[in-house]
């Protein structure tokens, strides 16, 4: 029973943590982020299964997390009113070629980050951008001005 309870606590702790730290951290996966991800997984595993090396223990932990993920995903799909809470909301960061400083600051995104994301989508200048929206995943979508 303990392992299921621990899996539930770990799942919700990580879920809240990921929502609180913000989407900027979710979008980038630099080498250091990758190392942090491995360290995080190892630290969580210790607390989750502790000295339980059994296959049953592994099934219980993985099964619990998979079911919770399914439950959150279903809730997100079934109850649109809860999406802002579970997934967050997209944020407009550029309108008519002008970066919206307040929104960029909120997500700790610099103009350099924004330009780098634009270049990845073959956009050389923000003047060509009608809208840029930071999605809930942390990725930035660019919509070009007509004729650009």
């Amino acid at each position: 029973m303990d392992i299921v309870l621990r899996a539930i606590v770990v799942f919700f702790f990580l879920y809240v943590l990921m929502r609180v730290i913000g989407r900027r951290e979710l979008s980038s996966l630099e080498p250091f982020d990758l190392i942090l991800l491995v360290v995080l997984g190892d630290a969580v595993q210790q607390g989750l299964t502790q000295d339980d090396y059994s296959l049953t223990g592994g099934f219980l932990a993985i099964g619990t997390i998979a079911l919770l993920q399914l439950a959150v995903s279903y809730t997100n799909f079934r109850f649109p009113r809860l999406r802002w809470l579970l997934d967050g909301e997209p944020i407009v960061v550029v309108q008519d070629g002008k970066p919206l400083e307040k929104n960029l600051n909120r997500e700790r995104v610099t103009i350099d980050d924004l330009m780098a994301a634009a270049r990845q989508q073959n956009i050389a200048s923000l003047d060509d951008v009608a809208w840029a929206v930071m999605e809930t995943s942390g990725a930035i979508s660019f919509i070009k001005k007509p004729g650009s």
Partner: protein
Amino acid sequence: MSDIPDRIVLRRHRDLETVAFHRPVRWVLLLLLLAVLVLGLLNVFGQRPETHTVDTARARLELYAPSHLRGGLLYEARFTITAHRGLKDALLQLSPGWNEGMQMNTMEPSPLGQSSRDGDLLLDLGHIGAGRVYRLFLQFQTNATNVGRRRADVSLYDGATKLLTIERTVTVYP
């Protein structure tokens, strides 16, 4: 101005006028996280040892052990008995909280005998001469499923005479 992308509402997604972008909620959650970490630094969740000392005319007992633990932790309890007067038959009585859900790895030096008294663990240490010091080391590991708070008192006897007691509890976090 170019057409607004579908499903984007300016009031909501540009001006951020919804509870989803309510900064205080994020700050409160971050502060809560910080508070937990600070409590950890302050030893609220273990495992830093503490010293408890009781001194009487006949003997002094110093206990050095953590009172807050977490599942899986290895830890030591050190009992230092200083006999102000000779103790003919020193006995240490440990309440069940010392062993409940704990794995005892070793006890050095081994006592002369072990028994149970009213459900407590009784360790027979033998004779301790006046002015002598007896130091007992107990090494434990906390079982992962052992969660909660229990009494972990220790009493020192000389034969049937109780000399002193250290009253304490041990709290195990999941």
